[in-house]
């Protein structure tokens, strides 16, 4: 009995780690850059495919390939914001307008990125196996690659948290999120910071993609379901709150794992029920204001 409970709890944490990581990126993009990035999952997909290519073609281990894929995805995100979204931001009369338009622009991006991925990698399912062996924890067995994923999620999450709370740039990002105009008056170059945030969001997605590719098969159309999960986590944790994304991610992972144990068919229903109930009861999320 205790093993079963432990089993469910840890399985939930393992899922939660991935959820949290992909939600943190989206949270940053929405919370600071005000872009509800529907194409977030496409960046996850890019990260996953770059990792797959490097592993299968050159034998570069996924965790090492992070060093190559992350800057690449970051640059794509940064340039996209600098060009496309900055222009949209300047031409939009209000923040609400910008949010709406940028979301739709992301929908266009989603189409483009997916098509490019299908053209360059083909539509078929890809996968590889890496660190796929069981690890014993207090009598319950777990996959090594998933444990590593959880570890990475926690490490990256904490590193990111420290970056935001301790460094000059991190503080500038938080300031820009809370009051962009006032931040500009502090000498912070807002459009640079926003692009940085969008790039960092893409980077987190890329890391998420790498970690996901270690445990799951990948395909060019995989993005949307991860975007949906990230959105749920975002709302559960509180829009734009980084710690909130972690709380939301782990909560969702745990709920998923408990419901899957009782009635697997209802796992996703449970996600959406939580999502919608929370929107009704406390739209700003668990850690939101």
């Amino acid at each position, binding site marked *: 009995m205790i093993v079963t409970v432990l089993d469910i709890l840890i399985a939930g944490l393992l899922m939660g780690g991935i959820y949290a990581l992909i939600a943190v990126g989206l949270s940053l993009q929405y919370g600071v850059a005000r872009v509800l990035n529907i194409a977030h999952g496409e960046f996850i997909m890019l990260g996953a495919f770059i990792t797959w290519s490097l592993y299968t073609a050159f034998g570069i281990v996924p965790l090492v390939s992070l060093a190559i894929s992350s800057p690449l995805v970051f640059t794509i995100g940064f340039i996209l914001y600098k060009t496309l979204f900055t222009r949209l931001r300047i031409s939009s009369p209000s923040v609400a307008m910008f949010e709406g338009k940028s979301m739709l622009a992301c929908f266009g991006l989603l189409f483009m990125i997916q098509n490019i991925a299908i053209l360059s990698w083909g539509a078929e399912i890809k996968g590889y196996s890496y660190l796929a062996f069981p690890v014993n924890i207090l009598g319950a067995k777990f996959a090594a690659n998933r444990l590593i994923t959880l570890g990475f999620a926690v490490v990256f999450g904490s590193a990111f948290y420290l970056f935001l709370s301790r460094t000059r740039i991190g503080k500038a990002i938080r300031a820009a999120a809370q009051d962009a105009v006032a931040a500009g008056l502090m000498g912070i170059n807002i459009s640079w910071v926003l692009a940085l945030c969008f790039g960092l969001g893409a980077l987190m997605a890329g890391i998420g993609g790498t970690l996901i590719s270690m445990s799951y098969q990948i395909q060019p159309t995989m993005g949307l379901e991860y975007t949906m999960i990230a*959105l749920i986590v975002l709302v559960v944790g509180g829009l734009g709150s980084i710690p909130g994304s972690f709380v939301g991610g782990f909560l969702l992972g745990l709920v998923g794992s408990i419901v899957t144990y009782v009635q697997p068919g209802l796992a996703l229903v449970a996600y959406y029920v939580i999502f919608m109930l929370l929107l009704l009861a406390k739209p700003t999320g668990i850690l939101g204001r």
Partner: protein
Amino acid sequence: MHIPTSNYKKRVALGVLFILLIVMVTSPLYAPRYTVILLTSIFMFIVLTVSWTVFSGPTGYVSLAPAAFFGVGVYASALLGFVFPLPVVILLGGISSSCLAVIVGALTLRLRGIYFVMFTFGLVELLLHFILWWEVNITGTTGRVVPTVGNTTVYYLMLGVLVIVILTAYLLNRSRYGLALQSIGECEEAAAHTGVHVTAMKISTFALSAFFMGAAGAIMATRWTYIDPRIAFNPVLSFLPVLMAIFGGTGQLYGPVIGAALFTYLEEFLITRFPYYYMLIFGFIMVFAILYLPEGLVGMIQKLWKRIGGAKHADS
């Protein structure tokens, strides 16, 4: 109550509309048969887009629930199609969607902005997964067969709904209720203090727009023979009406109509000409339109018109 248009202009517009209607009503008699099918699709998207605009245009509540309402209509068709005649089924499809809209509307009154967007989109996924689970575990099936009717019948039914939707939208726009809806979008608080029953207005309009989406779903399902939750609740159908409305411009009634018609045709064109690059081109056009056509096609046309016609008829 409106800026008086010259009688002449009005008559021309009415004449054009009448001819257009005649052409549409008679086209199954002489148009190529595929044109009729393509038109049905275009009509469906116009219905979805215009009914989306009826609610979301003036109030500014961006709803991503069209797929949910459409899906409810689809299921109505599958469940009741063998029991009732098609017109009754369409009506029931519309009514069920309206009921859903009333419930959702009453629940989500407090939500504004992005929260409303998220909730409505969550609704689509929740319904999808819940019905999936229900069908698998309770009824023990997922696919349902829908009775089919001829293409021409589908065409006329969709045309009928289209005419009703446009008429409704037109009358609503001109009426005091249209004005009230717009005032809600501009400042809800002030609207309430001017005597507008904000809650009732929002819910009833949401339900009205859902009715047409449900009806469209009930009609369209008959073309598909077989449906399952994934087919019925296709999230893309939530985004397309929004994109089409933006593409056309929501300032005028004909904006969403033109937007939906052009968008659907463009998609058809790209998908048949460039099957392997269509998403890329389509995505690019979307981004381009959002960047460079902030007020949609209609806004652009009006700007061009003004430039050509000079300041002769410059309206305020």
